[in-house]
């Protein structure tokens, strides 16, 4: 009989999946025994949204090595297309699970296509430029959604960029996307269980990508673009692949987010620059390129401010200090030198040498 061998990366992945499932089981037991306040229960779905966002952004920042500040923009695309679909199909498909799954597929595809279209020209740029263009793109998406009006009547769909009156709807027609007021009355299909299933799906996609041939090609681009180009790796293809998958997963998070709210609006608070930065903080604190770290930091940074209510004013301030401190500690040549000098491993080795 051949012995089944568990290699390091498989062990690592199993640990990540196990952690999510364990957290889910513990939470379910706590809810079952009535130990979770309604406030905490309300936080569970947003928590899943943040975890998916953090994992998907880590694919761009950690694995591809490009800074994207427009992640909230992709989430916005997913949220609005998903909610739009659910709203239209509310009476046609009454089975809510099927409708929700279809909404997720549609949201993911829409965000993925937008990611592909944005990525094609933008990924030719490097570093700082890419960051500022993705930031600009996020703002453009938000602005467009805020002036977009779509209505439906017996003749079909009507579009307008001015106001709901210029749609020219017949009597009995409904306005689905109402400009700055967004979409109201989205069916509340998102559940904690669904969120966890989506997290696990995201993890399967991202972890399998990282440990595949394609994933190694993407990481080689991050580590040395010129060297990987010279061994025949198609830079554009792999960059686009990572960027579009990351965008599509952000779209999934957006659909989940939209189906947890009764009214969906594109405000600076939920889909603006601040949201993108918050996701970036999750990724940076969890460790750039470390998927499990992203999950843990997203959970801790979402729950901590809720548990410490008194600190809520200082939440963003603490986030910014975390960003600066983590970067200085991890990347400053002086700190790296200090860490090597006083690291535990080295001290132990020294002691052994003395003996």
């Amino acid at each position, binding site marked *: 009989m051949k012995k089944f061998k568990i290699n390091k990366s498989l062990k690592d992945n199993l640990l990540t999946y196990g952690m999510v499932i364990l957290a889910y089981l513990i939470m379910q037991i706590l809810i079952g025994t009535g130990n979770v306040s309604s406030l905490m229960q309300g936080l569970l779905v947003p928590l899943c949204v943040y975890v998916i966002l953090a994992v998907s952004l880590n694919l761009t920042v950690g694995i591809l090595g490009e800074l994207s500040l427009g992640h909230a923009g992709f989430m916005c695309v997913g949220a609005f297309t998903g909610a739009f679909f659910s709203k239209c199909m509310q009476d046609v498909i009454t089975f809510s699970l099927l409708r929700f799954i279809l909404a997720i597929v549609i949201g993911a595809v829409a965000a993925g296509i937008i990611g592909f279209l944005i990525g094609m020209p*933008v990924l030719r740029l490097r570093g700082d430029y890419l960051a500022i263009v993705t930031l600009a793109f996020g703002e*453009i998406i938000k602005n467009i959604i805020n002036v977009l009006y779509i209505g439906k009547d017996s003749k079909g769909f009507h579009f307008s960029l001015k106001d709901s009156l210029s749609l020219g709807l017949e009597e009995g027609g409904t306005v689905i996307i109402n400009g700055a007021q967004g979409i109201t009355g989205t069916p509340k299909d998102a559940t904690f269980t669904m969120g966890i299933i989506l997290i696990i799906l995201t993890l399967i996609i991202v972890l399998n990508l990282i440990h595949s041939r394609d994933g190694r090609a993407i990481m080689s681009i991050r580590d040395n673009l010129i060297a990987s180009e010279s061994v025949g790796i198609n830079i554009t293809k792999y960059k686009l692949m990572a960027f579009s998958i990351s965008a599509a997963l952000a779209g999934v998070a957006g659909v989940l987010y939209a189906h947890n709210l009764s009214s969906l609006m594109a405000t600076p608070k939920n889909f603006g620059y601040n949201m993108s930065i918050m996701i970036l903080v999750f990724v940076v604190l969890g460790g750039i390129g470390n998927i499990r770290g992203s999950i843990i930091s997203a959970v801790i940074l979402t729950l901590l401010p809720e548990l410490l209510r008194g600190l809520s004013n200082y939440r963003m301030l603490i986030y910014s200090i975390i960003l600066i401190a983590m970067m200085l500690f991890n990347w400053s040549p002086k700190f790296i030198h200090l860490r090597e000098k006083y690291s535990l491993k080295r001290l132990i080795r020294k002691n052994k040498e003395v003996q």
Partner: protein
Amino acid sequence: MSFISYLINGISLGSVYAIIALGYTMVYGIAKMLNFAHGDVIMVGSFTVFFAVSMQGLPTAAGIILSVVLCTLLGITIEYIAYRPLRGAASSLAVLITAIGVSYFLQNVALLIFGANTKAFTSVVTIPAIKLAEGQIIISGETIVTIISCIVIMIGLTLFINKTKAGQAMLAVSEDKGAAQLMGINVNATISLTFAIGSALAAIAGMLLCSAYPSLTPYTGSMPGIKAFVAAVFGGIGSIPGALIGGIVLGIIEILSKAYISSQMADAIVFMVLIIVLLVKPTGILGKKIQEKV
């Protein structure tokens, strides 16, 4: 007639962008980093004037001087604490994320001190408006002061860089840090000086911006900051005349699209300009093309 007054407003807003863009372009040229916190230095400058003049009742001139001095010190401090330790770091992502962190930090400190409510900024300009063409075109005092200060700053800065030793040192450092150091130039001091000048200009830009658009929140600086970066990229990053051209073109585009297309879409149009410029000519109008070496 209304077209001409829009045009003048556009040039005025563009002058503010140009002054802010100078800060970006100088820092980018010399330290090769995008100083995301630059926009928030603008906000700090405006809040200082607001605090000194409107809340403490100091004379306007004292408020202006205080604001410029404080922003200069702030720029030097930010560079010393956050950016200098990362010089020579392996990842350029690290500097960028730190800069975002600093920007966020400044916004939230202002939010804690002054609150999120919009403050009404009292204009620092006391010159009366000029009426042209029998009152059909009105040029406000703020517009005149903004355009004049932009021209003065541009001429002053060009003279400073080309005629003084410190300015020549800045050029040398932006060209090649290692070689500049060998020639006896203090690289760290030169970079600090660049940050100081950029931040002082940001303070002036903040006052001009808030005099023309008198609402002040902790987020006031971030949008003009990003747009000014667009202007700097548009004109060619690292180039001072480029910042002027980019700023003014962008200001005119913004005001005209607000007037004729849609006020909500104006920001989106400005950002579209950035994307198009980066795709067609990534080095900008006056930028130099740098060949990457292996």
